């Protein structure tokens, strides 16, 4: 894949910026990442609970 010089320059700069964002995310604990991970975990937990829970039967 060949890019024109401008697009190539942009690509290099964008990768650099992306790496900086990645580093900041790691350093800062990744507020968005952590939030979305937590949400994913909660979703998984909820769906597992739904699947495993059975309607309670009473003895009486």
């Amino acid at each position: 894949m060949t890019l024109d010089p401008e697009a190539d320059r942009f690509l290099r700069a964008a990768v650099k910026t992306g790496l900086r964002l990645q580093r900041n995310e790691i350093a800062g604990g990744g507020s968005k990442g952590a939030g979305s991970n937590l949400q994913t975990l909660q979703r998984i937990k909820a769906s597992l609970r739904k699947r495993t829970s059975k309607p309670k039967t009473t003895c009486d």
Partner: protein
Amino acid sequence: MAAVPWDSVLTINKALCQVQKTEPLTNPKALEKAQRLWEKAVPSSLPLIDAFDVCREAHELSAFLFNNGNTFAAVGHTVVERQLRSLPPLEAQILRTTIGHYICGLIGRRELQQVLRHLDPLFKSEPAAAPIPAPPEPAHQSQAASPPASVPLGLPREQRA
């Protein structure tokens, strides 16, 4: 957006995943939609805020499993990089963060517009000189003076290449 073909977006994501040693996995349906959205925007010269909207919509589609936010935020930041160089460091950081948050859907258009409006006088008053050492871009500089004042926040024209 001409300087950012869809292939570049893919390359950015791959590079970011490579650093984290993760597979650059994608959601094929969303990827196709994002590509269509992107390719529709690429040939046009968009105002800056519309370019961010394209990044935001593409991010929303969650085409990439890993580094989805970082990929599109990186594009958004880079689109505005030249303008950021003309701002004082604190304001540049405010704008960078705001753009990233907008693209990732953490803030709305109103907040972004407020920040852009707040920084607008700085864009106009500051000369285009870059205090940060950067690769010389004679084409940028020669064209930077040409856009009329009515498009201070438009996409840099040289990006139409």
